[in-house]
C-alpha cells in the first residue's frame, strides 16, 4: 500500500505509513484539494497519534491484528510474490498453477490452504471456551428478555397511569354533570313547589356533605376543601382575630352577620374535618367502575347519556348506542 501512496514524504513518514493508515482513514479525496489548514490539521493529528504511546493492550491488539491479517492472506494474493518469488517460479516449471492443490491429480482431498493456527492461552479444558460462550450467550439472551420485560412493564404502567388519569378526568366531568342535573332537577321541583328562593344554590352547597349523593360528593367535598383553604389563607392574611374559629366575646350577633360568619360556615368546616368512610370507599373503587356507576346514574335518573352529551326524552334513550365509551366510537 505504501507504494501506491501518492503523498510526497520524507523517510520518517514512510516508516510510519502503515501505522498512519491504521489510525487515520483519511486520504480518500485527492491530495491536491487539501487546503493549507486541512494539511496543517492533518499533520497535527498525525503527529499526535505518532507521539502517543500505545498501551500494552493496544499494542497486543495491533500485534494480533497484524498477525491475523498476515495469516489469513494467501501468499499468492501478493502480486510481488507471484512475479518475483523464485520458489513459485520453480513450482511453475513443475507445472503448478496457483489455486490448484499439490500431489497426484486423482487425490481430490488435497488442501490448497495452510492449516489455521489457533492459540490456547489458558489451561481451560476442552469445551470450556464454547461452554463459556454458550453461557455468555444465554446470559445475554436472558438479560435481553429481562430488559424487554421491564420495558414492556414500564410501558404498560405508563399506559395504565395515563388511562387512569383520563378516566379520573371523565369521572370528574360526569360528577359535574350529575351535580348540575341534580341541581336543575331540584330547581325544577322547587319551582314547581313555588317555594323557590334565590338562595337555592346556596342551599345545595350548604347541605351537609353526607347528604349529597356519594357519586358526586367527592366533587363537592373537593370544592369545599378548596374553598376552605382559600378562606383560611385569606383569614390568615387578615389577622389572627379573623380566624373563623375565633370567637370574639365583644362581637355581637350583628357583627357576626356583618362579617359573614355564618353558622353554616362552621358546620361546613366541621363537616370537612369529619371522617367520611362512605366516600373513601367509593373513591377507592376503580375509576372505570366509578365512571360506569356515574354514567348509569345519569341515564337512569335523567335519561342523560354522558357520551352522547344529550338528555333523551324517555327511558328508552333511543339513538344512544350504549352504556360504554367504546360503543360510542
Amino acid at each position, binding site marked *: 500500500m*505504501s*507504494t501506491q501512496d501518492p503523498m510526497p514524504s520524507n*523517510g520518517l513518514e*514512510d*516508516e510510519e*505509513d*502503515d501505522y498512519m493508515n491504521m489510525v487515520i482513514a483519511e486520504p480518500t479525496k485527492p491530495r491536491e484539494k487539501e487546503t493549507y489548514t486541512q494539511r496543517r490539521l492533518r499533520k497535527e493529528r498525525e503527529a499526535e497519534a505518532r507521539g502517543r*504511546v*500505545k498501551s500494552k493492550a493496544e*499494542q*497486543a491488539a*495491533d*500485534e494480533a491484528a*497484524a*498477525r491475523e491479517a*498476515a*495469516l489469513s*492472506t*494467501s*501468499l*499468492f494474493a501478493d502480486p510481488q510474490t507471484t512475479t*518475483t*518469488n*523464485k*520458489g*513459485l*517460479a*520453480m*513450482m511453475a*516449471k*513443475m*507445472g*503448478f498453477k496457483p489455486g490448484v*492443490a*499439490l*500431489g*497426484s*491429480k486423482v*487425490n481430490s*482431498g*488435497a*488442501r*490448497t*490452504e*495452510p*492449516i489455521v*493456527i*489457533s*492459540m*490456547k*492461552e*489458558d*489451561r*481451560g*479444558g*476442552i*469445551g*470450556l471456551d*464454547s*461452554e463459556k460462550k454458550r453461557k455468555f450467550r444465554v446470559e445475554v439472551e436472558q438479560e435481553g428478555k429481562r430488559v424487554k420485560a421491564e420495558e414492556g412493564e414500564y410501558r404498560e404502567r405508563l399506559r395504565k397511569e395515563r388511562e387512569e388519569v383520563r378516566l379520573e378526568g371523565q369521572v370528574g366531568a360526569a360528577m359535574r354533570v350529575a351535580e348540575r342535573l341534580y341541581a336543575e332537577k331540584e330547581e325544577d321541583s322547587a319551582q314547581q313547589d313555588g317555594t323557590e328562593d334565590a338562595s337555592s344554590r346556596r342551599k345545595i352547597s350548604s347541605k351537609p356533605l353526607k347528604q349529597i349523593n356519594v357519586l358526586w360528593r367527592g366533587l363537592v367535598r373537593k370544592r369545599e376543601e378548596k374553598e376552605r383553604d382559600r378562606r383560611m389563607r385569606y383569614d390568615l392574611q387578615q389577622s389572627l382575630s379573623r380566624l373563623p374559629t375565633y370567637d370574639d366575646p365583644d362581637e355581637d350577633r350583628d357583627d357576626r352577620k356583618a362579617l359573614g360568619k355564618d353558622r353554616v360556615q362552621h358546620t361546613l368546616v366541621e363537616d370537612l374535618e369529619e371522617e367520611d368512610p362512605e366516600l373513601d370507599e367509593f373513591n377507592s373503587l376503580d375509576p372505570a367502575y366509578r365512571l360506569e356507576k356515574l354514567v348509569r346514574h345519569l341515564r337512569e335518573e335523567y335519561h342523560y347519556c354522558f357520551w352522547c352529551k344529550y338528555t333523551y326524552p324517555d327511558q328508552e334513550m333511543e339513538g344512544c348506542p350504549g352504556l360504554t365509551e367504546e360503543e360510542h366510537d
Partner: protein
Amino acid sequence: MADRRPEEPEMSRAKRPRTDDPSQNPYLAHMYEAQDTSDYNGYNRSNGSGTKARTGLSDFKRHATTALQAHDAEDGPNNPFNNAPLSKQYFNILKTRRDLPVHKQRQEFLDMFHKSQILVFVGETGSGKTTQIPQFVLFDDLPHFSGKLVACTQPRRVAATSVAQRVANEMDVKLGDEVGYSIRFEDVSGPKTILKYMTDGMLLREAMHDHNLTRYSCIILDEAHERTLATDLLMGLLKEIALRRPDLKIVVMSATLDAQKFQRYFNDAPLLAVPGRTHPVEIFYTPEPERDYVEAALRTVLQIHATEPEGDILLFLTGEEEIEDACRKITLEADEMIREADAGPLKVYPLYGNLPPQQQQRIFEPAPPPTRPGGRPGRKVIVGTNVAETSLTIDGIVYVVDPGFSKQKVYNPRIRVESLLVSPISKASAQQRAGRAGRTRPGKCFRLYTEAAFKKELIEQTYPEILRSNLANTVLELKKLGVDDLVHFDLMDPPAPETLMRALEELNYLACLDDDGDLTALGKLASEFPLDPSLAVMLISSPEFYCSNEILSLTALLSVPQIFVRPASARKRADEMKALFAHPDGDHLTMLNVYHAFKGAEAQADPKRWCHEHFISLRALQSADNVRQQLKRIMEKSELDLVSTDFNDKDYYTNIRRALVAGFFMQVAKKDPSGKTYKTVKDDQSVLLHPSTVLGVDSEWVVYNEFVLTTKNYVRTVTAVRPEWLLDIAPTYYDLATFPKGEVRTALQRTLDKIKRKQAMKGGR
C-alpha cells in the same frame, strides 16, 4: 580451548571411522552394506552358508512357507537363525507370543504376503503386530540367505529401541546381532543383522543414498496411521520404488482407523485385519467442562488411587515441563495420602520423547508392592505425552486419564512461524488413548471433557505432520531422494502449495537450490546432515568464519532440548546461575559458554553435581555431546575443517555471530523505534524477545532461532548482529529492492550508504 582435555578421547573415537572400521559409522553404513549385498548376490554369506546347513530354516522355500513350518522351526531346539541352543526364557516368551491375536492369522498373513507386493495390515493395539509381523516375515522372506534385511520403521525412537529389545529377547538373540535398531545418532546393528527396527527418518536417510533401498527385501512401515513426515515421504517413495523393484515386499501397518485410506492410496492393496486383544473400556466424561485441565487431571489421578481397585494409571499431558511438574505434584500428594489415609504406595514415571532411553525404560518397572504385608496394593502412574498413545505398550494400565490435549507443531508459511501449540486432540486420538486402558483387563478411561465436547469440538483425524511442518528440510530430502517433480509427487496428503513455495524459496536463498530448482553442491552437502537446512548451511559455512568448532557445538546445542533448567521452586536461583554464563551479545553465545564450562575440568569432575548446581540439564548436554560427535564425523567425512579463532582474539565472538548470520539471515528481527518490540524482517510481524533471553533490548538487530506463538509473538534464542553483516553475508536476501518500504528498508539503506562512504574514503586514500 577449555574443552581440550575431555575432547581427546572423543577425537580418537571420531577418527575411528576413517582408520579402523568405517562400517561402524551409521552414516557410512549404506556404502558398505551396498557393497556387501552385491557380493552376496552371487553366493551366500560365508558364515551364513555354514549356518544354513545346520539351521531349521535350510529347507524353507522363500515366499512359499507355511505357518506350520515356522511353528516347528520356532520350537527349536536350536535357534533357527543362529543355531544356538534356545534358552528357557525363549520358550516362556514363545508361549505368550502364541497367545497373541496375530498368531491365529499367521497363515492368512503368509498367503496374502505371498500373493501381493503391497499389503495393508490393520491391527489394533495389543494385536502384537509390531513384534510378531516382522518375525513372520523373517521366517518367510529369509533375508539372510539373500544377504538382505527386513526393516520395520517406527515413528519414534523410544519405540524403535524398546521393540527391538523385546524382539531380540523373543528371538533369543543379542540386541545388535540378528535384531538391531537404528535411530538418529545411534546405530545398534551389525553384519549379522537381518531385522532392523528403525525410525522412519533413518530409513528415509538411507533411501537418499540408495534410491531403491536395495539393502532391503521387505519394508514394514509400522504405525503408519501416525502419519509422521518421514512415514508419509516413505509411502510416497515406496509407491514409486515398488514399480522399479517388483521383488520388494511392502507391509503397511496401521491401527484400525482410516485403513481404507491406505488401501486406496496403495492402488487398492489387499487388507488383512486382526482384532486386537482388547478388553472393554468404560468411558467417563465430565458433566461440565474443566477450568484447568492439569489440575483436573491430578485430581482424577489421586481420586483413582484413593478409590479404585488395583491397576496402573496412564495420564496424558502435553509437554515435558507440564509432565515433570505433574509428576512432582502427584508424588507429593500421594505421600500425604499414604501417611494420612493409609493409601497404597504410588510410583510416578514421566514419559516423553526427550527422555533418555534408560529413563524411558523405567516405565516398564512393575508397580511397587504394598508397604507392609497385607497392606493396600501399590500402583504406578505414567504421565506421558502422545508417545504413550500408540507406539508404546505398557502392560498393567487399567486407568487412562485423558484431558484431551496434545502439543502440536504447526508451521504457517505466511508468516513463517513454527510453533508448538497445545491443541485439542482428534477423535481418533481420543479412541487410541482410551484403548490403552483395556490391554490387560477391562479398564476405565476418564475423559476430562463432556461428551458433547467430544462430539462437537474434536476433529476426526489428527493432521498429518506433513501438513504442519516447514518443508525446507523435506524438500532437500526429496531432492536428494531423486524426486524432481515436487508438485506432483504423490503424497497421501499433499501440503498447502504455499508451504512448498516457502521451502523452495528458503532453499534458494540458502543457495542449496539454484534457480532451476536443482541441488547445488552446497545443497548436496547440507542434505548429508540430519539438520534443518539453515543449521546445516551455518555449519558448513562456519570454517569460513574461523569458528567451525564453536558452531559445531552450537549446532548440537540447538538440536537438543532446552539446556537451562528453571524449576518453579527455584526460579530466582536458576536465573542467577544462568547469569554466570550470560554473554551480553546473546543466547547463542551464552549456550556456548555453558558448553565450554561443562567441558571444563571442574565440571567434568562431577558432571551430575555441576549441572545440578548450575541448573543445567545434564541430559540435554549429554545428548548435545552425542549429537556433536555424530555431526563431527559427517564434517570430517565431508572434509570440512574444524577450526577455532583464538579465544583471546577480539573477533572470537564476532566470528561466531557472523557465522550465525550465514545460516539464519532469514530469521532476523529489527527493533521498533517506538519501544520494546521488534519486527521480523520481510514478514513484518511484531515480536517480543522471549523473557528467557539474556539480551538487553538495546540491540538494534537480532537473529533468532525460533519464532514461537504463545499468547504473544516471541522470538526465542536471540543474538545481536550488525546490519552490515546481513548485507555482506546474505546480499541476495537483503537486496533492498525486494523489501517493502518501511523502517527495515530505511535502516538497511542507511547502513548501505555508510558502507559505501567508508569504501569511498578508503578508495580515496
